[in-house]
């Protein structure tokens, strides 16, 4: 899919703009604090109806105004779709082809984006919760069922943790009800684990090849889904369900003592293994960067195979973080395949040579001019 056109009103430091984009690479160039990242953010918000930079809608609206409006025309294989998102203090309204959507879930997914920013290194370096969030965000965009299972899982988890607390403080006594909550949690947990393993396998397949190429055929990347269950128990949803149930039964007294659910997909993790070693602890900075890049680029392939449409790639100040070899690979991977928006302060040397016919937008103080 491609974003053909974007119209913004009162978004961040933009008063009113209307731009047409190229289907290939769009370069947003400008000095610091001119609005490059704001434009990427606008595309991200148009796609997901929320920002990656702030939780507060008010931050997205230009301080001089009460509301902001964003419109985009998305072209897909068979038809064009018009998206519109209106933000004001009380909330947001989303329209697809000029029809207001009652549920945001019927809006999100019309435009698929992948954002790559320097903070993404934390997928490799950060805590397990960052990797879980990464899985949940990516897989949730691909599969509505994943999102459904996840939201039910979280709800039941909350209930179960509360009940464990009540059992600990002897405000509740019924162990049978704890069993019911455990069974319910196991059922949704098993679905989530099974889906994660399947989707990760797809992601790993592409990531391995990309990593192999970037490292000049020296490094083999592998993913390992880390969970309380043994590998041999991960074969089917049913089997995972039975094993989770057994584990909850076994750890019942421990969980009551700790007043919380100590195992399940909300505690799982991924290990990225390069040549047999965990990159998070044993990898060099360079290896960690290569891994992040491989995983992010693999997401494009995964999303394409699951949704039949290539997503849109947003690169926020990423080129400056990568050396020549990695830049080459990144740009080779996206050239002619995905519509890309990248921000940079200067188009110098190697980058310029590598990109064919980029459409360059100069951004200065909330104004855009085409170079």
């Amino acid at each position, binding site marked *: 899919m491609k974003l053909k056109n974007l119209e913004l009103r009162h978004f961040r430091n933009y008063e009113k703009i209307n731009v047409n984009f190229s289907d290939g690479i769009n370069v947003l160039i400008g000095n610091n604090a001119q609005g490059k990242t704001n434009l990427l953010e606008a595309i991200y918000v148009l796609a997901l109806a929320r920002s990656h930079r702030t939780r507060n809608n008010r931050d997205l609206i230009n301080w001089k105004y009460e509301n902001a409006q964003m419109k985009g025309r998305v072209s897909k294989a068979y038809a064009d779709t018009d998206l519109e998102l209106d933000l004001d203090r009380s909330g947001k309204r989303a329209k697809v082809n000029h029809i207001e959507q009652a549920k945001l879930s019927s809006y999100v997914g019309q435009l698929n984006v992948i954002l790559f920013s320097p903070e993404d290194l934390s997928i490799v370096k950060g805590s397990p919760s960052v990797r879980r969030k990464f899985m949940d965000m990516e897989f949730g965009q691909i599969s*509505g*069922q994943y999102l*459904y299972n996840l939201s*039910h899982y979280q*709800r*039941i988890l*909350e*209930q*179960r943790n*509360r*009940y464990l607390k*009540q059992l600990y403080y002897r405000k*509740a*006594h*019924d162990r*049978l*009800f704890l*069993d*019911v*909550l455990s*069974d*319910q949690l196991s059922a949704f947990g098993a679905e989530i684990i099974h889906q994660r393993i399947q989707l990760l396998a797809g992601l790993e397949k592409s990531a391995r090849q990309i990593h192999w190429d970037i490292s000049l055929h020296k490094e083999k990347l592998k993913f390992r889904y880390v969970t309380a269950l043994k590998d041999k128990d991960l074969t089917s949803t049913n089997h995972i369900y039975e094993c989770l149930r057994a584990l909850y039964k076994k750890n019942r007294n421990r969980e009551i003592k700790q007043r919380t659910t100590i195992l399940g997909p909300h505690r799982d993790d991924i290990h990225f293994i390069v040549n047999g070693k965990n990159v998070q602890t044993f990898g060099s900075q360079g290896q960690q960067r290569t891994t992040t890049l491989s995983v992010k680029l693999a997401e494009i392939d995964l999303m394409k195979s699951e949704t039949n449409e290539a997503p849109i790639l947003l690169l926020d100040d990423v080129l400056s973080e990568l050396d020549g070899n990695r830049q080459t690979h990144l740009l080779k991977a996206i050239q002619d395949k995905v519509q890309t928006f990248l921000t940079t302060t200067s188009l110098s040397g190697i980058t310029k040579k590598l990109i064919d016919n980029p459409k360059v937008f100069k951004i200065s103080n909330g104004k855009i001019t085409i170079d």
Partner: protein
Amino acid sequence: MQYPEPLAKLIDSYMRLPGIGHKTAIRLAYFTVGMNKDDVKNFADALVSTKDKLKFCSICGNLTEEDPCEICRDPNRDRSKILVVEQSKDVMVMEQMKNYKGLYHVLHGVLSPIEGKGPEELNIKSLIKRLQKNESVNEVIIATNATPEGEATAMYLSKLIKPAGIKVTRLAHGLSVGSDIEYADNMTLYRAIKGRTQM
């Protein structure tokens, strides 16, 4: 200027009702002022009598004027089936269907530790007692909502009742009658395929 005290009290009372905000409450209060006195008196009597005259049936927990309730007293009811619902409202909905002739049991809520509702807080004990006393019951139909909490409650009840050798059934989930498949959302279709029946 402030509202005169009686009016302010009335606005405040209306605002306690679900779905009524400040503006609506003011509108209703001024409307009440304009109503004739008999209508207002009837209205007030109706409100008070919900508290004076209504009680919960000691057998099934449904709202009733007389204890036991009309359904529990009715000799023509099928005493081999008990349908378990979350609220008294649900009994009326089922009755309007006119196709169920068994008995009911009202739980007054669902299991939800977050809201402080455990098995002891619901009307479950009396259901078990009922089943122990009446050997004629051979099926318990659970009609809690299809929410995570409703499901948990259904699972809990079935674990409690099944060991006694009584059949426990759950309402079917899936496509609503008369609806087009093309308008069904993904999760509804998913549940409908999971719960498909052989022809």
